[in-house]
């Protein structure tokens, strides 16, 4: 072992150079202050987050549950991934039409295809305000710059009975 120490004597002398590498002057004067400041600000931040969690008790309970049992956290993450995956699959299938939000009836199946006047004649609404639900294809002006009609634009009109 002593032989080995002698073998590396010049290396050890060279390594002594490392002891002369020093940080900028005054660096250690404020080091501990910075550490304590960061601890204080961290404590404050965690206090704020605790206070804000107290206002949303269900979220606090959920986080407590997930923190306490890693199995729940894993299950929760798995469920989120599965939901995302299913969402991606169904989003890619155009043949699956979305469910209508309102219950469909025989009278309203072709409602969108009717003109406002026809819709008015079929409507039993006491107020009688009817609007067209035909999609507006473009936001371009109805008439062009030189007074020519724009073929892509459709006029939208309202007819109020009695007027």
């Amino acid at each position: 072992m002593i032989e080995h120490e002698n073998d590396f004597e010049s290396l050890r002398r060279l390594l002594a150079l490392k002891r002369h590498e020093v940080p900028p002057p005054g660096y250690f004067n404020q080091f501990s202050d910075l550490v304590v400041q960061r601890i204080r600000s961290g404590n404050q931040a965690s206090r704020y987050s605790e206070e804000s969690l107290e206002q949303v008790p269900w979220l606090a309970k959920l986080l407590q549950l997930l923190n306490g049992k890693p199995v729940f956290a894993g299950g929760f993450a798995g469920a989120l991934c599965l939901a995302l995956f299913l969402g991606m699959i169904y989003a890619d299938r155009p043949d699956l039409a979305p469910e209508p939000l309102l219950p469909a009836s025989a009278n309203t199946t072709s409602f969108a295809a009717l003109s406002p006047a026809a819709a008015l004649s079929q409507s039993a609404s006491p107020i009688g305000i009817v609007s067209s639900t035909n999609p507006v294809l473009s936001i371009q002006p109805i008439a062009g710059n030189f007074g020519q009609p724009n073929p892509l634009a459709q006029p939208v009109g309202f007819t109020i009975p009695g007027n």
Partner: protein
Amino acid sequence: MIMSAPVTRTDGSESPAPVDEGVLVQRARRGDLAAYDDLVKRYQERIYATIYHMTANHEDANDLAQESFIKAFHALKSFKGGSSFYTWLYRIAVNKTINFLKQRKNRIQMSLNDLDFNAEHNPDLVALISEQTPRREVNLSELQEKLNAAMLKLSEPHRLVMVLHDVQGMSHEEIAKIMDCNIGTVRSRLFYARQQMQALLSDYLK
């Protein structure tokens, strides 16, 4: 609370004797930041130096040293006192540094500290740069750069053993406690690290 007796300084003034480390640790565990500030002041230079010698980068060493002390403060409740606070703190700093080095593996960038005034008057170093070596024209700054570059080529465990023993002067036993391994492993790592360094710096060593 344990009060310490005043100690007379060399300039004649009296200052309180340093408070026992165990007392400071107990107070810090109860959230006393003034006590923890004392602990930081005690070990900041050694912790910073170890991290700096491992990373060869002042900014990284600064961040990692601060984070190590912050992590240690928050983990104080789990400190059972099985080892000294100093060893425990070192372990936190060393693990943090090794994790950091693993992440930045492919983007090593040196940001070396300046050499202090005494380096130019160190007889060993003067001898190294003035002797009839194949690179006798080398100056201290260049030597510093080559030395750090060579150290970065060692694996983290080998570099750590070399830093703790040959630069910071720790015993094999202390290093074994910090690295949580046996003394034989420390010795063999030290031997291998020195061999590698000798080969890497052969142009600069007699």
